[in-house]
């Protein structure tokens, strides 16, 4: 312990980036808004694909809340997403056509699915927890498959045709309305979630992830707080699911599958867990690879993704998103 010269307490410290900078939490949403607008202008023919990326990004951000911020091990997160997708889809087929209400219903269904999942998998830790999460997603998959009268089973649920957004904006063939709606929801979610992870609750969850017993020793509880985070995560995953139902008009069994859960985890690791924007980066890179590489070589694209994943995990353990922080350090001091 080197002797520390006495210094006044309350003076702001140089080099302190994490505190007291107002508006800092709006940087990432602004960047996303600008990139989103540029994509809209530059690639008007690819909007459906971009919408798919946004749905994936929302889903992976939702996963980041429980995996990256709370340290929960799950390969069953699609249960939360699928609940939202089916809820929105089924309600729409039954006659509720307002797209925002449908997405809200998807979000509520995601919360319920999140609570149920949390109740089961938070009983265990580590490997058993992972196995429980797989069991939960398999059960949900089978349930959706068996209930073909309402879900369409393996044929998928179709006939979802929502009305115009705010009664004004029809879902058009080019996917413009869908894309703008998705982008707005993504930005809003990003603003809210960045707020949450910087809140006292976010700090507590980071503590729970790093050492739950130490949290107990300062008087914090674990289970209730994790359930709460799961509910929030369910709201976001259900929103993503509802969004996909509304914008694509179909919901398939793959939306409650183990594969979709695993892909989300891959995207999260690729982009970097525990930062939110890493989830974005991972979703863009993975879905982009899927889209372009699979178009060139539909049989070997997963091979490329696998190689990329290995490269990233070995070279950048904190994910592709950490490249941004690395670049920022290269900038001259004093730059934002």
């Amino acid at each position, binding site marked *: 312990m080197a002797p520390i010269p006495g210094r006044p307490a309350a003076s702001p410290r140089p080099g302190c980036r994490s505190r007291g900078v107002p508006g800092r939490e709006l940087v990432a949403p602004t960047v996303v808004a600008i990139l989103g607008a540029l994509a809209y202008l530059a690639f008007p023919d690819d909007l459906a694909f971009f919408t798919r990326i946004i749905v994936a990004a929302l889903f992976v951000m939702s996963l980041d809340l429980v995996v990256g911020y709370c340290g929960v091990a799950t390969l069953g997160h699609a249960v939360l997403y699928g609940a939202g997708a089916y809820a929105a889809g089924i309600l729409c087929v039954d006659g509720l056509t307002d797209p925002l209400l449908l997405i809200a219903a998807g979000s509520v269904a995601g919360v319920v699915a999140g609570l149920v999942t949390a109740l089961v998998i938070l009983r265990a830790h580590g490997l058993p927890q992972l196995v429980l999460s797989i069991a939960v997603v398999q059960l949900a998959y089978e349930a959706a498959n068996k209930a073909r009268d309402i879900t369409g089973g393996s044929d998928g649920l179709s006939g979802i045709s929502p009305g115009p957004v705010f009664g004004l904006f029809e879902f058009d063939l080019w996917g413009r309305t869908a894309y703008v709606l998705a982008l707005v929801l993504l930005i809003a979610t990003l603003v809210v979630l960045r707020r949450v992870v910087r809140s006292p609750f976010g700090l507590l969850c980071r503590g729970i992830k790093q*050492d739950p017993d130490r949290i107990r020793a300062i008087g914090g509880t674990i289970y209730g707080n994790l359930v709460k985070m799961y509910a929030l995560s369910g709201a976001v995953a259900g929103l993503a699911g509802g969004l996909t139902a509304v914008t694509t008009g179909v919901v398939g069994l793959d939306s409650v599958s183990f594969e979709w859960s695993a892909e989300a985890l891959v995207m999260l690791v690729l982009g970097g867990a525990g930062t939110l924007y890493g989830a974005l980066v991972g979703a863009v890179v993975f879905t982009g690879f899927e889209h372009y590489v699979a178009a060139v070589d539909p049989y070997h694209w997963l091979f490329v993704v696998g190689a990329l994943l290995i490269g990233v995990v070995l070279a950048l353990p904190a994910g592709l998103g950490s490249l941004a922080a690395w670049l920022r350090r290269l900038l001259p001091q004093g730059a934002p």
Partner: protein
Amino acid sequence: MTAALEVQSLCRSFDGIVVADNISLSLAAGDRVALIGPNGAGKTTFVNLVTGTLKPDAGRILLAGVDVTAVSDVERVRRGLVRTFQITRLFPDMTVHEHLMLALLQRAEKTGRLFASLDSFKDAGAEADDLIAQLGLAPVADVKVRALAYGHQRLVEIAIAVALKPKVLLLDEPAAGIPHDEVLRIIEALERLPADLAILMIEHDMDLVFRFAERVIVLAAGKIVCQGTPEEVGRDPAVRAVYLGSYASRDRDALGPGPTVGRGRA
């Protein structure tokens, strides 16, 4: 006056090996007591039993006169029973300031707040800065603890405990693992703790014990073998025997009472 902490006949064994053998002690507000004993005597186990991390086989624990034996560890913390860890247990990815914010907000029961920015808790922020300054940690306030010198980490352990404003504080070897010449920093920090706080300190560093404690309790093989002022305990041949390791080979009850040392419960 009711004791801040009262422990009655606490017993616990692991696989038939007794690690807490009928331990009774009592701390009043403002007490400064040291618990010493050789390695493996059961000191940390005693702390774990009192905090509720471990369940006792028998015995009772009272906080401010209220039986908390059946109360959860978390609830005991909320009622003012706080401990530090022999081997530093901090959150490697959090800064010093974040540790203190977490402790202060937890104490104020505000860690459930989802949508409030941390920066908006100005009072907690100022209090955290105060504590950080008191312990001389200001220059490293925004450094993640994984990058801190171990001595600084020990100070953060103490700072967290202070931030929780306990009524009873159990310090498990606060100076463990840091060079002797830096122990002074720890001593200064301990001497600045609130006067009405009841403190039980486990410590091997005898300088620290003599400077800090008014009363010393000696534990060996899970049993209190003697207690008294530091001077009394220092003179007791039984204590020497314990520390020389010859204790185990002798019949416990055959140990004659030390000339000036009180035995059993005070």
